[in-house]
């Protein structure tokens, strides 16, 4: 029997290749957040003229949202891929092999985390090209890559849990708009102190996505802000922990049904 790391490595490689080889999966991950960034950064540039806006570059402010959107596309792609494997019977055949149970999902999630780092690198690069200024400097890059990877892992695991629970790619796709609402009702477009509508300010303050966005954003516009960073990492780690717990529970249910 091969070692756990070999099993996880093989399945992680498969997971990455499955996404990288399908342009219709890569397009939303790479281009959709960048298109939205281009449109929003141009359309909302006037916001930098508001008193109290923390930077004169809206693109530096807004690029953080791309990392979260990329993470949410990981949820859809990972969940859909796993649901396809369940629908086609591949997952069940895999479960009948001597492969360790933990490898079944760990391989997939390692692939997701690696893709998360890769997509974050693309956003950083495109941000630089578009004129975003990384105030934290080069040292901020690995922090963004780690946070991007963790975010993708958290959302990807949530996609896995949904796929294991429902076994349907369509149902997983149906989750996307729900999670998009979390981005809309956050501090994605304006800093929280400039959200003047009372209820919206309250919702954005309670919405964990605000803190995730602010974690990425702080590196771009404030340099090293420990409070924003620990909150961002806390949300990413919390999301990952909750998602992995959901994966463990749904996995047990799925394999029992098998």
């Amino acid at each position, binding site marked *: 029997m091969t070692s756990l790391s070999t099993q996880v490595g093989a399945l992680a490689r498969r997971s990455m290749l499955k996404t990288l080889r399908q342009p219709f999966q890569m397009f939303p991950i790479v281009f959709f957040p960048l*298109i*939205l960034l281009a*449109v929003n950064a*141009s*359309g*909302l*540039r*006037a*916001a930098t*003229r*508001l008193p109290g806006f923390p930077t004169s570059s809206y693109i530096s402010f807004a690029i953080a949202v791309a990392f979260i959107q990329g993470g949410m596309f990981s949820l859809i792609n990972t969940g859909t891929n796993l649901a396809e494997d369940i629908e086609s019977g591949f997952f069940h055949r895999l479960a009948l092999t001597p492969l360790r149970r933990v490898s079944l999902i760990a391989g997939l999630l390692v692939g997701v985390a690696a893709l998360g780092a890769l997509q974050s690198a693309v956003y950083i690069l495109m941000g630089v090209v578009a004129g975003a200024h990384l105030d934290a400097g080069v040292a901020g890059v690995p922090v963004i890559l780690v946070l991007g990877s963790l975010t993708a892992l958290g959302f990807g695991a949530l996609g896995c849990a949904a796929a294991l629970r429902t076994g349907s790619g369509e149902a997983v796709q*149906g989750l996307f*708009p729900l999670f998009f*609402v979390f981005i*809309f*009702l956050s501090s994605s*477009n*304006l800093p929280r102190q*400039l*959200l*003047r*509508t009372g*209820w*919206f300010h309250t919702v*954005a303050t309670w919405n964990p996505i605000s803190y995730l966005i602010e974690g990425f954003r702080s590196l771009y516009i404030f340099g090293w802000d420990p409070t924003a960073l620990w909150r961002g990492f806390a949300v990413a780690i919390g999301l990952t922990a909750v998602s992995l717990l959901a994966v463990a529970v749904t996995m047990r249910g799925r394999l029992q049904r098998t």
Partner: protein
Amino acid sequence: MSPAPASTFGSGTGSGATSAPGGHSAAATSGGGLWRVALTIAWRGLHTYVRRPDLFVPSLVFPLVFLASFAGGLSALGSVPGFHFPAGYTAFQFVFVLCQSAVFAGLFTGFTLAFDFESGFARRLMLAAEDRRGIALGYALVALSRAAITLSVVTAVALATGMRVTGDGIDLVGLYGLAALLVLVGYGWAAGVAFRFRSIQAGPLMQTPMFLILFLAPVYVPLGLLRGWIHAVASVNPATSFLDAGRGLISGVHDHTGLAFACAAGLIVLFTIWLLSGLRSAETSP
């Protein structure tokens, strides 16, 4: 098709199967067949829509989320130097949400048509319909009725949350008239795609161009406050005239109203040709 009387779709395989390209037989040229088919499809479409929460709920929730997010989350933009809109920022954003909801009601009906092709229902419909143009017209009526529900709810919520309307009654008739034309613009494009591809996988092709056109307009602030490439693009984007006209109508300070109606009418003519040629493509496909 339980509500459809036998006469709605002609007799047996006759007219639908043997008609000339375009699908209308001599008997149907009076227009009676066209409307019978259209009204039956419209009834079925609306019936399905209101009975299926998976269709009904998202079409209501998304415009409301956009309204909440843009009007609520970006209200500070109303105090950007140079921003003057008499009816306030909620009304400013409401017009965008109204236009977007109208276009998307049309697009989602295109999705329904594509899904009906995938399930085989639309093919059977094409065999049975007395006048196949009635199919296109019927789905257009579905789009309009879906939009009527969505726009009523969005308007009610916007008014309940304090949106100010400073335009008069005639202006509002103009605003909702423009929205109705935008439903047909969205539907014309999406149905043309659906008739050609006959698969829900063409969904992104229906949605993405319209999404981009809408967002490459002055969504958050007026055109005068946009700078750089987005200003150049928005200046020639027909969606800018829709938003300007809509905002003019809701505030009573008219802006590009004639241009917006002309653009919408022009796009409807263009997309009707696109849609009917798509219908012909569906008729001739194996």
